[in-house]
């Protein structure tokens, strides 16, 4: 990874550390709760103003927002890289499908229980990988997590009796509660569920990074030897960071399953894992807000690229060729532009513009 990004991330971390010790500080939890409620109210109001498809897109943004903050904590705050978070999402998604099919999925409590099952499984898988990863650094860690990203979807094809093979599993989902009205759009309900998940993740992680654990994570990232001399159990901190981000990934995967009402290995492949890393770099690793930009970028990418092909109007043959590859090219181009103009990601760029 570009060293400038890490530097910027460190600067962000340092800035935040000074904020924490400033005398103006009120209760962190309270402050975050107020922000969460304000943002929550605004977004829920917004879901009433937009079409079902936009709600579905918003829900997708929210599902990414369950994963990306955890990845920022892991990469930006703890200095570990993971190319295997797509696989952890699969670990969170399959239990949702399996338990929804087992329970029937029609009572109101089936969904929370299924999602919880997904998070628990992802945490367990994450703990195993985290323990292995705690001993690895840099490229070795990237390699190990890459192996996870490649191998976990293959489990579904191998044990196709349980996991439905390449076709995956689809499952029933209870409609929105009838108290919301008979014509409440299902997509708005999905958006609410995903937004609630994203809100919880953001709130918990925002508190975590400002707590003693957050400082421990950053200390380990900056200098392991110094951290160990200061009495920090380096291995434990690294495993904890991995488990926390795995929980987020599991929740995100569960949300993806809820959005699609199906899971399949193709949806959680290597491309997803790589897209997640690209998104947090694009959004900014210095703070959790980078996750918002990253999530929006992941969802906006396809429509923007489609629009671009529309403007270019290259003729049938050329646009057929570009159809699938152009979004990736746009993503790559955006990444290069952001890295060169704002190494701290979109978040740093926006902050800089707002300060002016």
């Amino acid at each position, binding site marked *: 990874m570009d060293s400038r990004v890490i530097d910027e991330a460190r600067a962000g971390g340092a800035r935040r550390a000074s904020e924490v010790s400033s005398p103006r500080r009120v209760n962190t939890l309270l*402050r975050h709760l107020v922000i969460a409620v304000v*943002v929550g109210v605004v*977004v829920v109001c*917004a879901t009433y103003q937009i*079409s079902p498809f936009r709600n579905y897109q918003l829900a997708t943004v929210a599902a990414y927002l369950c994963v990306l903050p955890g990845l920022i904590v892991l990469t930006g705050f703890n200095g570990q890289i993971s190319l295997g978070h797509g696989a952890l999402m699969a670990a969170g998604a399959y239990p949702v499908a399996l338990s929804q099919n087992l329970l029937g999925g029609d009572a109101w409590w089936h969904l929370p229980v299924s999602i919880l099952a997904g998070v628990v499984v992802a945490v367990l898988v994450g703990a195993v990988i985290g323990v292995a990863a705690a001993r690895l650094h840099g490229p070795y860690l990237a390699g190990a997590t890459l192996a996870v990203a490649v191998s976990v979807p293959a489990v579904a094809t191998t044990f*196709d009796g349980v996991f439905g093979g390449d076709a995956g599993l*689809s499952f029933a989902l209870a409609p929105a509660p009838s108290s919301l009205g008979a014509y409440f759009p299902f997509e708005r309900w999905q958006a609410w569920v995903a937004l609630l998940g994203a809100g919880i993740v953001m709130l918990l992680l925002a508190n975590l990074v400002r707590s003693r654990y957050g400082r421990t994570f950053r200390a380990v990232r900056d200098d392991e030897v110094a951290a160990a001399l200061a009495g920090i159990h380096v291995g434990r901190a690294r495993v904890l960071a991995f488990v926390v981000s795995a929980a987020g990934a599991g929740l995100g995967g569960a949300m993806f399953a809820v959005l699609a009402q*199906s899971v399949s290995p*193709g949806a959680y492949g290597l491309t997803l894992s790589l897209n997640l890393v690209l998104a947090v770099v694009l959004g900014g690793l210095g703070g959790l807000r980078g996750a918002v930009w990253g999530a929006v970028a992941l969802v906006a990418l396809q429509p923007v690229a489609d629009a671009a092909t529309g403007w270019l109007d290259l003729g049938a043959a050329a646009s057929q060729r570009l159809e699938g590859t152009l979004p990736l090219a746009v993503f790559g181009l955006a990444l290069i532009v952001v890295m060169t103009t704002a190494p701290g990601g979109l978040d740093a760029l926006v902050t800089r513009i707002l300060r002016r």
Partner: protein
Amino acid sequence: MLRSLWRGVAVAAALAVVAACSEDSPGGSGAAVPGVTDTTIVVGTHQPLTGRAAAGYSKISAATKAYFEYVNSKGGVHGRKIEYKVVDDAYDPAKTQQVVRQLVLQDKVFAILNGLGTPTHSGVLDFLKTNKVPDLFVSSGSALFNQPSKYPDTFGFNVDYVTEAKVLANYVKKTFPGRKVCFFGQNDDFGADALRGVETVLGPVAVSQKYVPTNPNVAPQVGALKAAGCQVNVLATITPFTALTIGTAAKLGYRAQWVGSSVGGDFTGLSALLGKPAGVLLEGYVTSGYLPSPLDDANPWTKLFKDVNAKFNGNATFEVNTLFGMAVGYTFVQALQAAGEDLTRESLISAVEKGGFAGPSLVPMRYGKDDHSGFSGTQISVIRGGKQAFVDTPYVTDTGNGPVEPHPADASVPPADGIPTA
């Protein structure tokens, strides 16, 4: 604290702006039928334009679109021009979910036409049902898409896998009596349905092997077929795996009679995949089809579609998938004609259920109130001397225990202007 609060509000406002800049698109308010105006009909589809299934299949939607443009150039259907929105799902069921929602909720299409793939399309059946979107001519032979009581608006297009396997098995029974017959298929309902069809006609096969499409190593399975001494192998494999299987057998020095489903039996595609030794390896390969051969210039349907391909599809390579795409377009226009001038989703569905479509196919289509599956049979074709040609006459059968019966070869010709009438 104040600054943090302001930042939070700024982020929220940004999100709200992103969200609010896209209010419900207008147009839906006046018109009662989504996607239909006095001058246009908007139809959508999901196709694998990229990804592992793109080779070959990406040609289908382009051909359908070309046929629609041909119809539009002649004034459209009942004065309405057909607008065909093709979106790429890369054969990824998760992406299909997203793009079909885009087509239905945002683009407000009138119907989904020829959505391709069993794993991809099966995921959107419930969504389309809830939104009451006609789901015509699914590009798959799976029995999933023939459930009129559960999915009243969904119709399959391809010959179903059981029917085709029965016709293939019937040919094996007549042509290779007494030989040891084995089976090699995909580990989903494509393979399972085909095996069921084969065993209905021939009784239990000697050996049955399976593969998963994500693992491109079939040496163990082909080795098992060889070890068991199989003389005739019926394949339910997609085109890349047909090529892989035949190639692997050649490497293992294993000679057998290969009999493949039309799904993986496209001669042009197989030749391209196998490269130079294709001529030798594919000699004697048996497959079947329900549409005229793209190489048969004497067939008036092939000639018509070739002309359309030249004028409206940039003269792309004319192959099985191109002809398939044209046939989809032709059948859809026929359904629109039958639905009449007062086009609604209900009138379209009842027009298809009335059936009686006459088109480029070699066998009749089955559409009726209780049957939403496509073609009723196939005709065997054999590759000899680097050429694929039909033999005998078409055969039709059912998906149960019914007999496999010959269907007199149909000499239907397309209408003079190439556009079906009601």
